[in-house]
């Protein structure tokens, strides 16, 4: 793995200021819009969903297929790369993409590129083991991947999937 390149004085002693006791008024912080990054179809706020529907509806499954269009001595070169990766027999997509130099990357770990798919998958297994845990049926018979309720997790293994389409 390598860091992603081209996808190509003296310390003063802390002097704690009293916080929360100032008399000057502090403008209110801006409240969040309604969006739910853990719920399929609600990952972005309304202004994005309605203003850019084609941006938010792309199929994640297609991310394993990368097409590079290059030019060399006047010839247009198109290279399409498709990966099929299974971990413990389960098909995973992992947002794998190929950059212009043929190196792999994933926006799960956006600052890194990898020479091989093996390196990328190994990195993600070590860095994000929760991605590879088998989904267990919830009491209602659904997989964790369908759960978007986060108040109680006693029946879940170590995580709740979110954003699955």
């Amino acid at each position, binding site marked *: 793995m390598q860091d992603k390149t081209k996808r190509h004085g003296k310390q003063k002693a802390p002097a704690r200021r009293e916080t929360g006791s100032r008399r000057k008024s502090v403008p209110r912080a801006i409240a969040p819009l309604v969006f739910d990054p853990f719920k399929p179809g609600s990952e972005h706020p309304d202004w994005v969903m309605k203003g850019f529907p084609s*941006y938010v509806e792309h199929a994640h499954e297609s991310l394993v297929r990368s097409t590079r269009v290059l030019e060399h001595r006047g010839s247009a070169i198109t290279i399409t790369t498709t990966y099929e990766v299974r971990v413990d027999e389960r098909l995973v997509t992992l947002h794998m993409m190929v950059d212009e130099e043929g190196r792999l990357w994933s926006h799960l770990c956006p600052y890194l590129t990898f020479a091989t798919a093996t390196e990328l998958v190994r990195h993600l297994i070590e860095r994000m083991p929760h991605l590879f845990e088998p989904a267990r049926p919830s009491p209602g018979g659904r997989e964790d991947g369908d759960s978007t309720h986060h108040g109680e997790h006693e029946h879940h293994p170590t995580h709740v*999937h979110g954003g*699955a389409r």
Partner: protein
Amino acid sequence: MIRRNILSDGAVRQQFIDGVLALKDPARFPWPGQQGLSIYDLFVAWHHQSMMLFTPPTQRDRNAAHSGPAFLPWHRYFLLRFEGYLRSALGDPDFRLPYWDWAADAALADPRQSPLWTETAMGRFTAPGTWQVRVVPAERGLTRLSRPRPLDRALGRGGALPTRDAVRTILRDQVLYDAPPYNSTSNGFRNYLEGWEGPARIHNNVHVWMGGDMTDSTSPNDPVFFLHHCNVDRIWQAWRLRYPNAPYVPAQSAPNTLAFHRLDDALYSVLREATQATPRSVLDPLALGPPFSAADRYEYDTLADLQA
């Protein structure tokens, strides 16, 4: 109001720590509709979601906040709003984010020995009793950990902190803000500072040098994210002052395939703004446009190290 070096102002350092701990607390700053999560976690999710939005979806490089012209204005906007929440948490309208001058640490024999990583500074955030990561990337979105885990760092195991000379080189040589095709292959200051071009890989290399959570799309899980990007923002400001006639590009007349990145496009936001923030609105920290007010303005304590 002045943004200062976190290692030269102990009071600001303590305020930053107190502030992020407050924002992380769901009881004090709850994320509406997300039980058990806080406003801090919302900022983590906001960054991740920006990265998941390819702009446009017909390509696999530029997203709403990275690998494109909006990289610098979007992160300035992100920091401004985080800074506003910190002011609320601290009850201090004069508070401004501190920055981490990582080029100074790059000159140390062992940057891992920087005072930044001591228990009284940012080292405390790896203590499981102090800080827990709750929101992490999922295969197709975000995941809430039902059992939050400690923050992960792997300082110096990969990458390298950019040197002062490397930063000065791009400030000197990159006279255009950005250039077609406005992605990670572009020439121009933005792409060199972001780190897709050039040997120093400036911004990206700091994420890699820190390792652990800082290498993920949920990198704001590490509060050092904000100190790092504040320094990136400082470098952008130094560049703007050096080349005051270099315009932000692309202009609004550029094709709509560059939506989210043109001068007057709305920056990707999950906040209820009265007026949407645009690249234009954040170009000058001392004259921020709507939705910002005079209360948001800032400047840096020094740019002298960036001017040689």
